């Protein structure tokens, strides 16, 4: 009886194990492997070991793209934090039903494909789009603003797409703060700002870091947002990798950048761990 139960238990894990091995671990190992191969000029690979792909990353052209990506991702993360905290804290003073409704609204965008939603922004942001027409029409500005095909458009798109990933962990952390602590802080003479920096922030820092990781990492790689709202003029790491695989047909170099990106992510996670963050808050690891 007991034995049969055990077999059953293992049986149910088989699909997931196969899925992980076949579709995640093996491809990842393959990427790691080809990152050490040479490419030939026709898009094929020469199976000899080399570190040149990794050396290539430190070419000034690519370093510029890396810095640009990190810059855009950092700004996106910062804007998301600045929106998520006030939202989460203001939710705490609402009734539970209102709170649940608003949190559900945060998740509504997940119901629709993000690519389609990103195309939707073109209608809003372009020169004769809704926002510019409204601003010019009401006389607030005289000539339309350039809201897309530049960094602004990319950041708007990134923030829009990634904001829920910041709000959810931040809200979850904020909602665990004992409201009495906040009252005690006010009672002892702290202002709202001081209460935020001295009580809320230190007690929810793991949620903030969690959300920041979940925003920062995709923000480096979401090439479709730069493609659509950056008009293909601006490259981030995501575009670079995509181009190596699809356009330049230099798979080994694309693989090397991918591995480099994974390493950067792992470094960020280990910093988080060092700072005392719990892996559980990142969804377990």
């Amino acid at each position: 009886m007991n034995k049969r139960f055990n077999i059953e238990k293992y049986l149910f894990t088989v699909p997931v194990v196969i899925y992980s091995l076949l579709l995640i671990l093996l491809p990842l190992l393959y990427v790691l492997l080809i990152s050490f191969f040479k490419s030939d000029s026709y898009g094929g690979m020469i199976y000899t070991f080399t570190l040149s792909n990794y050396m290539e990353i430190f070419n000034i052209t690519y370093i510029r793209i890396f810095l640009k990506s990190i810059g855009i991702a950092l700004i996106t993360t910062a804007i998301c934090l600045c929106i998520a905290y006030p939202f989460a804290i203001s939710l705490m003073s609402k009734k539970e039903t209102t709170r649940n409704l608003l949190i559900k609204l945060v998740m509504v965008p997940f119901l629709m494909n993000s690519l389609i939603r990103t195309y939707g922004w073109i209608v809003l942001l372009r020169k004769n789009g809704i926002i510019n027409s409204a601003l010019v029409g009401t006389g607030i500005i005289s000539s339309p603003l350039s809201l897309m095909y530049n960094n602004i458009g990319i950041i708007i798109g990134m923030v829009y797409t990634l904001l829920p990933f910041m709000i959810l962990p931040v809200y979850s952390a904020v909602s665990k703060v004992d409201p009495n602590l906040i009252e005690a802080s006010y009672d002892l003479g702290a202002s709202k700002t001081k209460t935020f920096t001295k009580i809320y922030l230190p007690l929810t820092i793991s949620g903030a870091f969690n959300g920041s990781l979940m925003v920062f990492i995709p923000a480096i790689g979401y090439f479709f947002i730069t493609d659509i709202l950056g008009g293909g003029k601006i490259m981030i790491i995501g575009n670079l990798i995509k181009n190596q695989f699809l356009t330049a047909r230099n798979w080994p170099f694309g693989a090397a950048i991918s591995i480099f990106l994974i390493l950067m992510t792992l470094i960020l996670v280990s910093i988080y761990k060092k700072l005392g963050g719990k892996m559980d808050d990142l969804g377990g690891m």
Partner: protein
Amino acid sequence: MDNVIVRLENITKKFDDKTIIKNITLDIYEGEFITFLGPSGCGKTTLLRIISGLEEATEGKVFIEGEDVTNEIPAKRKVNTIFQNFALFPHMTVWDNINFGLKMNKVPEDEAEKRIKRAIKLVQLDGFENRYPAQLSGGQQQRVAIARGIVMNHKVLLLDESLCSLDLKLKREMQGELKKLQKKLGITFIYVTHDQDEALTMSDRIVIINKGNIEQLDTPKEIYSKPNTAFAADFIGESNIIKTEITHIKDDVAYVKLTDDIELAVPNNDYKKGKVTLIVRPENFNPHKNPVQESFAGVVKNYMYDGAIVKLEVEVGDRIIKVHQYDSDIFEEGSTVYIDIDKNKVIIIGDKNE
């Protein structure tokens, strides 16, 4: 004579359409230990929060040290609260917790250090300065919370069911300490509790609150011996509350019906003939083995040994009355007991003479 330190004027508080506090006016004096006592949901905590500013009164005014603070935020009010769960900042050490209020009020560092050291000494937490709240016992956390409040040097400290979460023995200890501390500091403690023992042992005055009204406001002794209402009598101490009537009055003695057959003669010059509530504390019924003058007989239904006293439940006619016994006579269940009464300690609540 005494200085009023906190004045509540016609305070009413409504949540949505529910009235939690109904037009309460109250003066609290400098240096007194005053307790808001009442069942849960009576509005006592809300009243405390209105004083601290964590809650806004719907109507009425709050004065602290003579200043109208009705529209002031908590940070600007010269009072501090000790929360029920202590609300210590978990990411700060004991020292930093106590220092928090001083930092927020920009007290110079050297003065802050002196005040913190004094507060730590007062609550006997020397040596725990660098611990975090999670490394402390419940009693120690309580002390940190008190130190964090008193270090602000305000003349009023508000304590919200502060001993509630401690175990019984620790609670008793802290009761004594709180009272001592309050006397030593000479500041006003406004204490909220639903525990009548706590209220009786610590308070100079007790405010009994029921359904948003002040039921009675007096010293513990006065409330115990002369409760204004059946609610007050029931809430403070044990009592026999008997709804009955005065059948006749003769020579300043009222004859109160206990059962159909038994009438108690009670000295009276206040009350009229008619329906009254008779309140007798169990210790004012004296049980005897043999009949004594003016005693009536009953049957022991229940005998509970409780150390210093024995608690009896006695059936008299169609009533069960609670009787406390202090001597060592043993009454077996089912045996007959003769009871007389301390006439002067009987309380009658009913229509008074004009």
